[in-house]
């Protein structure tokens, strides 16, 4: 896992790098959960996401938007995602626990994921991500 929060005036900007797209998406997911709920997250309850999109950016945006939706309506805080991408199709297995106000109230609500500041690039070492969460 490797991501860091970069200074951004209005919102939350994250940079990540990973050897594969699967790991990059998983890092972006972890960053999202960390921003929203803080570091104390456990597993035990499972959800699955499957979707397709026209390119990597759209795929990531749709994936994280779906995570926001499930997390909110099911009241779940996730610790980990196993992501498998094949072409422009993604399947992700999420592992989490019910929201606990005492342990998960240390973050900021993320309102949405847009293309604003979203870039996925690739070089010899793997993939790099720049993303902004609208908070």
């Amino acid at each position, binding site marked *: 896992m490797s991501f860091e929060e970069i200074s951004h*005036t209005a919102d939350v900007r994250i940079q990540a790098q990973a050897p594969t797209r699967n790991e990059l998406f998983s890092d972006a997911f972890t960053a999202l959960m960390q921003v929203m709920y803080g570091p104390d997250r456990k597993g035990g309850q499972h959800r699955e996401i499957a979707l397709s999109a026209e390119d990597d950016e759209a795929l990531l945006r749709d994936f994280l938007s779906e995570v926001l939706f499930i997390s909110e309506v099911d009241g779940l805080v996730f610790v980990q995602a196993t992501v498998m991408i094949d072409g422009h199709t993604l399947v992700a297995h999420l592992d989490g626990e019910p929201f606990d106000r005492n342990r998960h109230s240390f973050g900021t609500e993320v309102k*949405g994921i847009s293309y604003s500041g979203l870039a996925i690039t690739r070089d010899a070492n793997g993939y790099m991500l720049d993303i902004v969460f609208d908070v």
Partner: protein
Amino acid sequence: MIDGVKRIGLYEWEVPVGFIPHMRVPGRFFLSESLGRILEPGAVQQLANVATLPGIIRHSLAMPDIHWGYGFPIGGVAAFSLAEGVISPGGVGFDINCGVRLFTTPLAEKDIAGRRDLVDELYNAVPTGVGAKSPVKVSSGSLDSMMMNGARWAVKAGYGLPGDLERCEDKGCMKQADSSHVSAKAKQRGVPQGGTLGSGNHFLEMQVVREIYDPEAAQAFGLASGQVCCMIHCGSRGLGHQVCTDHLKTLELATKKYHITLPDRQLACAPILSPEGKAYFGAMAAAANYAWANRQMITHAARTVLAKKFGIDYDGMPLVYDVAHNVAKREEHQYEGKREDVCVHRKGATRAFGPGASDIPADLARIGQPVIIPGSMGTSSYVLKGTRTAMEKTFGSTCHGAGRIMSRSQAKKQLSGKEIAAGLLRMGIIVRAPNENAIADEAPEVYKSSDEVVNVVHEVGISRLVARLSPIGVIKG
């Protein structure tokens, strides 16, 4: 100032056609020299990008709280002709009808100063922060009525006074709402969140009127020096966020379908009168109505606490006004010598209709619309009035707040929530939040001075100062 931007007045700047390719109109923004020193080049680029959109009228505008957003800059205003123009979620934002309202009380500062018990009771009565759920069970039928009727639904359900509706922009209900374009997912998110504050910069504050600049307008608005008021800042919660997420996707496809060339993918849009454009507008209006109902429910919770605690009449806490600052509206404006029905986008900007304009309460027709500009928890909030100058220059719009200058990550590193809360307490301000991070995130230091932002809009004349309020009790989401 940024290269290529021309000064055209003491506080007015122009981004000429040609600043970037394909601009259809010039950009205009309002800024003092000192605010100009912290202007981000990216925000000016976004202002210019908006000027390339089809059907844009007169100028791509930005208020003095301009900063970098997605699609439009925050503080951005743009009007589009119905025949040729487009509608874009990038001109509204995720938090549809994020807005502010203010109600007065018969209390004075001495009645509530230092009363942590009041702040605690308000905190317990209004669900706040990440993961907060409403104590109110909203059925799916009620949810639909919330989306179609807005604050009207809330008042009918017992969450307010009939007079409240007269004091809301659009009477708390956009009649173009069409809940059939709100997805099942958005509705699912809306059910448990009615009457919740949310997090980030949203707040409920007990404030005191510190200064009156315009006695006639203040009296008409019901404001008096030394009076205790309550200000509520929040929006359409997960329902609005989901409407934005869903329609961004359909409008990306529509951008291609209608062969609209964009300088930035974030400006996904569709012709206003296309099926996709109408669907977004109907869903956005439904989310806007949900936000009005939400603010009305929070108002009810706060009034109930105050009435019980101080033995004052629930009816003795009238609403001054409620404004939306993230919204697209169909409005009539004077353009090229005639009245035209246009679509105005306000993204972090407040409507500021002047005297005689439509949709102003009858008793304020001579004065102009009340405009509410929230500060941060240690700094002043302002009430202003709309002007005829705003109708001429900015399609009846003004600023919406202070605007951040420090990132959240920097704030968390540099500032301690505990120390900030202690410092505010020394100033007589009691703060309650779900955690210390939320206090550091929103500390007074992270915002531009709201004083300077409102001074610019006052000097330019796109709204005029009426009163200044400062907080003494703060609930952060």
